[in-house]
């Protein structure tokens, strides 16, 4: 192994995920941290830690110059970007190359090719990977756009050519909506990606979002993994993922997997990555884009195949050949992931930064916790609200669902709001249980106002009243050592007597 020390240019749960793989592999880890992150878990977890700048990402985690400098200072052989931040920035890869540091991800050229959606569509079309009907060339001119839209037929999806992560995407149902959608989309794209080019695709009705994890090494060996079903999305962001998909049988699995492998080859890809597809109601699949990095949902694939994707990714970056054969990749039952966000599902998923004053994570059979926080951690407002991932494995989908409901019921995060209760709603929904899902699922679910659970309703009310009584009497008797604290000392006593 050439790689003996890795700088992890990220934070929170993904930084921990990568550092865990490194610790198991005997690789030393280097953390970088912004001002607010001095006390964050990734700093505590890694072998080394260096301050990198002020809290806003633009002054810290996005500073290529500082990160390269610290990698050299600390003697790191490689940099792992995680996801988000610099993970899909070809310029960062270039700087790593120039400085003789291994970038743990694909080559600069492959990343550059796939980073632009229209460029990627053209390449895939040439390679024979099915793409959604639509324009291949980026469009900047409204007249041209209108003509193309007419040819393709409404509804259409209007997308930023340079986009990614669900940003700059809107559906246009008729020509009447096209002009204003074009104006907004181009200005958004300009602001977000510095490029106002757009393109259009025919809108697929009730699509499923299905993706295929692939791995390809520097020697052209390629593997595809059983698909992930990622249709449960909110604002084009995934919230719950599973593998395999109920909509895909063995035959289709092989076809879509081989298409993904072909896409990886066509792009000269040389790392782990994900090929995203849309699946229409007739089970036709269409290439959407390639995520040239590890993904948040990678654990569901790890759970159903037993393969550590981060380890594999590091080995490929270390110029090792993939030792596994396609036949070694088998589905072992079913896995589900719930993304735990610091957001308030009762208030339109408003961010909920703050301090984690209490934390109890689920456990037991078939449960995996990928946390980025600990009791006492601060969730800053500067970064993504994801604070952890909860994954369950079951011998079938039903067991994985029941296990996830059980695990969520054990999860206790105090001090901030999280999406745990929202996930419970998803998992108890009849359509979800039956596998009748598409990318419109969450909006539909949010519209159905569920009654608060009568079973717990009275208990919650009574608890609030009793706690209120405590607070009140504490004030009344001016004694901070009132009732509850007495119980505590009583309990202590009981424990020792």
């Amino acid at each position, binding site marked *: 192994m050439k790689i003996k020390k890795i700088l992890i240019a990220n934070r929170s749960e993904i930084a921990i995920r990568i550092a865990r793989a490194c610790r198991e592999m005997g690789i030393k880890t280097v953390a970088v941290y912004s001002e607010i992150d001095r006390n964050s878990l990734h700093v505590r977890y890694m072998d080394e830690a260096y301050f990198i700048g002020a809290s806003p990402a633009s002054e810290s985690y996005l500073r290529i110059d500082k990160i390269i400098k610290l990698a050299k200072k600390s003697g790191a052989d490689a940099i792992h970007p995680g996801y988000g931040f610099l993970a899909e920035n070809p310029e960062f890869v270039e700087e790593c190359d120039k400085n003789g540091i291994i970038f743990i991800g694909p080559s600069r050229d492959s990343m550059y090719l796939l980073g632009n959606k229209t460029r990627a569509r053209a390449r895939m079309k040439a390679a024979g990977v099915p793409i959604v009907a639509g324009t291949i060339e980026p469009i900047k001119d409204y007249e041209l756009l209108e003509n193309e839209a007419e040819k393709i037929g409404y509804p259409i999806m209007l997308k930023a050519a340079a986009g990614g992560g669900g940003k700059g995407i809107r559906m246009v149902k008729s020509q009447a909506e096209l002009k204003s959608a074009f104006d907004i989309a181009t200005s958004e794209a300009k602001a977000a990606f510095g490029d106002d080019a757009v393109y259009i695709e025919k809108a697929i009705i009730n699509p499923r979002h299905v993706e295929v994890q692939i791995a390809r090494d520097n020697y052209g060996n390629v593997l595809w993994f059983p698909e992930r079903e990622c249709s449960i999305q909110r604002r084009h962001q995934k919230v719950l993922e599973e593998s395999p998909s109920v909509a895909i049988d063995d035959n289709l699995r092989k076809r879509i997997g081989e298409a993904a492998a072909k896409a990886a080859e066509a792009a000269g890809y040389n790392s782990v990555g994900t090929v995203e597809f849309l699946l229409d109601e007739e089970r036709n699949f269409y290439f959407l884009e390639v995520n040239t990095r590890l993904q948040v949902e990678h654990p569901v694939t790890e759970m159903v195949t037993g393969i550590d994707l981060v380890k594999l990714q590091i080995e490929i970056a270390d110029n090792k050949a993939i030792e596994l054969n396609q036949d070694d990749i088998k589905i072992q039952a079913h896995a589900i992931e719930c993304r735990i966000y610091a957001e308030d599902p009762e208030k339109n998923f408003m961010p909920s930064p703050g301090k984690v004053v209490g934390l109890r994570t689920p456990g037991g059979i078939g449960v995996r916790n990928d946390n980025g926080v600990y009791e006492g951690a601060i969730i800053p407002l500067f970064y993504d609200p994801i604070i952890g991932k909860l994954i369950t494995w079951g011998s079938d989908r039903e067991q994985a669902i029941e296990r996830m409901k059980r695990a969520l019921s054990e999860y206790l995060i105090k001090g901030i709001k999280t999406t745990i209760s929202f996930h419970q709603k998803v998992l108890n929904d009849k359509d979800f249980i039956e596998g009748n899902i598409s990318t419109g699922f969450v909006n539909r679910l949010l519209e159905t106002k569920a009654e608060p659970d009568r079973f717990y309703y009275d*208990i919650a*009310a009574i608890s609030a*009243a009793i*706690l209120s009584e405590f607070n009140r009497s504490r004030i009344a008797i001016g004694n901070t050592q009132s009732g509850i604290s007495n119980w505590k000392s009583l*309990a202590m006593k009981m424990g020792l007597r």
Partner: protein
Amino acid sequence: MYYVKIGNKEKKIEILEQSGTVFDVELDGKLYRVDFVKAENSYSLIVDGKSYEIDCNIAGNRYDIWIRGNYFPISVLTEAQKRLQLSKKKKGTGGPQIVETEMPGKIVSVKKNKGDTVKKGETVIVLEAMKMQNEILSPKDGTIEEIYVKDAQIVEASEKLFKVK
């Protein structure tokens, strides 16, 4: 007597008696005998043989309660507080209202100035946190009497944003 509100429903709860960790509680005319004990982060209730573990965050009159991953935002008022609230309500919402932040964040833009007239639901301030923008709306028709924050300012939870009359 406590007035306990979950969602739109209000319930009256009376704590009749306490003996050690056991409380006799009346809710909607029904009696409950509740064994209520605490550990570090959470409480354990046994009510008529049924067992519940609850977690609670307390902020003022607001009790956020979790039971097995289900969430119940609850407000609790004493009788005195209830009377005060009722008398306030009688006065109506004609008076000036101060809008506070519900979460910490950065002020991205202040859309209105002191003296501007606003409609109910109109955006007055845009606040950003965790890469998401949130619009803070006017709660009523009226005039902006005061703006307490400025562009690019970082605010904490429950900070005053503006006053509308």
